[in-house]
């Protein structure tokens, strides 16, 4: 063995000499220890390398065989972040028509520190963008601030024109802008949102939390087609009778969904503070005022349906009951008289048909103050309605503790109590739909899922009310409705307006609530015209029968085909049989 060492150390060893293939026996000592340590280190190092290669191999398998997990972050580096979703959800109608949306719009701002010749820049900008004040702009551009708005929400053409000017220091910020394609058609229902995307009126305000920062659109119960028809017919009444205001509503009586809602005069939500080109003198506050939900009005005779319904429901009278309406009632300093008095005893259907104040006051007396209050509360007429809008008025009525006899009588025919058209519509729907009061809503309900509602009068009373509604239109004050085939029933209401604390003799508020088809009511139309003036065509009359009732009739004729209501022969025995009170069958009925 020592020979090997000899040869290795020997510089003269033969060139091809190979030492025997066996490890040299290293005796114990420092060399042996060094060799052992080296082996250990080699083991550690090779284990580390094996581990590293295993990791690389594993990674390779992961990358090649399961691409999804790994490629996404890689791609994400190349994929620009998607633009932030629109800051406000769209609003659509019940058929998906776009009623309000949010669009990108460029806004121009400047960094005055970069602008050298403020006067020149101001001159160029004023020439390019209309509606800028040159002196004011120049002051802005000379300021020492780093940021001033010049004009917000430019059109794409204006953006292009400003870019063409090539002025350094001018920048565009991309902002969002709320757009209402239908303009004033839906002004009060939708309302509007301010420049900073906060809802300021209507649904935009009422459902601000549901709209802000959301993407899924809010679907309203409004039907755009019905809204247009109602708006057109209301505008016609409003203009024809030079009225001060008007409110209209179409409601599904079985669900409480509001299908159309119009309040006149109205505004364009795209420019809520611009004057109306057709009526430049109407103040903005008046146009913003929602007469359907916020205004509360003494509605007059329309209220008689509630008095009659409560009297029939509590058994104070029956369909054959009769009351003496021969002479006016004098109570205290008041005199209750009829507009077109028949001056005789009237039956309950006749009192409603001819809209007798005397008869209705006596019916109210028969009901009594306590029961009257209880029923009105049940009908939701003594509390503010719950609704999606924030513009909600509350009814006004005498203090329940001091509900005197004269109050009972006047409230019986709709004076001395004021209600919003919205809650009148809900309560009137309950009178004809089988007696179930449902909360009005502006949101589309899933089909065949009517809310529970509250039974406020019995189904039998409601059946009587349907017959009475129909009689009013057939023979009574509502004869001008004129919507043959749709079996309309309803009630007029003409209230004297209060002017200077006194009831005016010739200034009125006319309204009509109609439902159709009365055989099984589906839809309700309510129209109120505030302060109409008689015309030649109406022979000088401004009462509900001449103003609101024909408007409701025209509306129903136009909307019924869209709502799928089939016209029927109104003189067919089946319809007559279903809607004529037993006590009047076969009798001649005196027309109003």
């Amino acid at each position, binding site marked *: 063995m020592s020979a090997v060492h000899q040869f290795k150390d020997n510089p003269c060893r033969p060139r091809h000499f190979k030492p025997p293939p066996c490890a040299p026996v290293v005796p114990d000592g420092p060399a042996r220890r060094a060799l052992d340590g080296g082996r250990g280190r080699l083991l550690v190092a090779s284990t580390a390398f094996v581990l590293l290669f295993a990791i690389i191999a594993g990674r390779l398998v992961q990358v090649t065989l399961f691409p999804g997990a790994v490629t996404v972050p890689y791609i994400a580096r190349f994929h620009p972040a998607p633009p932030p979703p629109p800051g406000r959800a769209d609003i659509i109608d019940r058929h998906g028509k776009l009623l309000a949306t949010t669009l*990108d719009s460029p806004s121009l701002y400047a960094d005055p520190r970069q602008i050298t010749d403020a006067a020149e820049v101001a001159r160029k900008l004023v020439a390019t963008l209309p509606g800028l004040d040159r002196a004011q702009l120049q002051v802005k551009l000379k300021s020492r601030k780093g940021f001033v708005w010049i004009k917000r929400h430019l059109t794409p053409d204006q953006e292009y024109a400003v870019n063409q000017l090539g002025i350094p220091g001018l920048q565009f910020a991309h902002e969002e802008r709320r757009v209402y394609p239908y303009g004033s058609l839906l002004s009060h229902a939708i309302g509007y949102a301010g420049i900073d995307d906060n809802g300021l009126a209507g649904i935009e305000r009422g459902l601000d939390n549901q709209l802000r920062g959301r993407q899924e659109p809010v679907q309203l119960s409004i039907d755009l087609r019905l809204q247009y028809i109602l708006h057109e017919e209301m505008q016609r009444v409003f203009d024809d009778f030079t009225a001060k205001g008007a409110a209209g509503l179409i409601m599904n009586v079985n669900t409480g969904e509001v299908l159309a809602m119009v309040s006149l005069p109205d505004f364009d939500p795209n420019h809520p503070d611009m004057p109306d080109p057709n009526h430049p003198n109407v103040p903005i506050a008046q146009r913003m005022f929602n007469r359907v939900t916020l205004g509360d009005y003494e509605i007059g005779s329309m209220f008689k349906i509630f008095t009659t319904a409560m009297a029939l429901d509590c058994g104070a009278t029956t369909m054959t009951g009769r009351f003496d309406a021969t002479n006016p009632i004098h109570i205290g300093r008041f005199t209750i008289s009829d507009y077109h008095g028949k001056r005789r005893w009237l039956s309950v259907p006749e009192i409603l048909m001819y809209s007798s104040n005397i008869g209705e006051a006596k019916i109210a007396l028969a009901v009594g103050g306590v029961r009257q209050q209880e029923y009105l509360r049940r009908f939701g007429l003594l509390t503010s309605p719950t609704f999606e809008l924030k513009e909600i008025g509350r009814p006004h009525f005498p203090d329940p503790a001091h509900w005197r006899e004269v109050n009972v009588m006047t409230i019986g025919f709709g004076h001395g109590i004021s209600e919003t058209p919205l809650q009148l519509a809900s309560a009137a729907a309950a009178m004809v739909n089988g007696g179930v009061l449902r909360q009005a809503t502006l949101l589309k309900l899933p089909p065949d899922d009517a809310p529970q509602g509250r039974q406020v009068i019995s189904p039998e009373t409601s059946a009587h009310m349907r017959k009475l509604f129909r009689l009013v239109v057939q023979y009574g004050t509502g004869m001008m409705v004129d919507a043959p*085939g749709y079996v309309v029933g309803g009630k007029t209401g003409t209230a004297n307006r209060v002017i200077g604390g006194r009831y005016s003799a010739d200034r009125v508020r006319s309204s009509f609530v109609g439902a159709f088809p009365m055989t099984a009511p589906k839809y309700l139309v309510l129209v109120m015209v505030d302060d109409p003036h008689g015309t030649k065509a109406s022979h000088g009359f401004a009462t509900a029968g001449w103003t609101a009732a024909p408007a409701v009739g025209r509306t129903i*004729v136009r909307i019924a085909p869209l709502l799928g209501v089939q016209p029927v022969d109104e003189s067919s025995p089946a319809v007559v049989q279903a809607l004529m009170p037993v006590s009047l069958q076969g009798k001649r009925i005196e027309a109003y």
Partner: protein
Amino acid sequence: MIRLSTLFWLILVSATGFAMFAVKYEVQALADQLAHTSRQADDAERDVRVLDADWAYLNRPDALAAMNQRYLSLLPIATKQLIASVADIPMRPPPPPPVEAAAVVAETTPQRGGSLVPSGPVAAQSPASAPAQQSATPKPIAQSPAPVAAAAVQARAPASEPARPILIKAAARHNPAPRVRSLDALIAQIAESR
């Protein structure tokens, strides 16, 4: 031997390297393309929002009403036009047997052009146009030289067949007289008014 394996590995390494860079550049190009496409998609989405709003604006009911008045003069459906529903109109009867059919067609062909004009408004309303044509030509069927064929047609028609001609005539009478008699005339009118 050693040289050969070295050469083999060298070639393999360079081939792998080349392939890797090729793939890398390809991926980079694809990523650029992806970024571009997704930017385009975002732009398109924004454009769609604008176009949706534009479409809604152009479809304002008052604008449509004005256009209708200018070009079409359609009127709202009158109540009396709705007294019969589409369901009342029977389906088109099945075609008569082939041999006799030839005779029937020969008889009806000259009438067909004439029958289209009065039934214009009805045809525009509903699929009633087909029965309208059929019902407007009951005579040729009755006069056809093969009475057997006529009987076959009658027998195959639905039970409500006799009511059909009256219905459609009534509807045609109630319709307002259309100003535009055909689509061609309408197009000509539109072109003229421009």
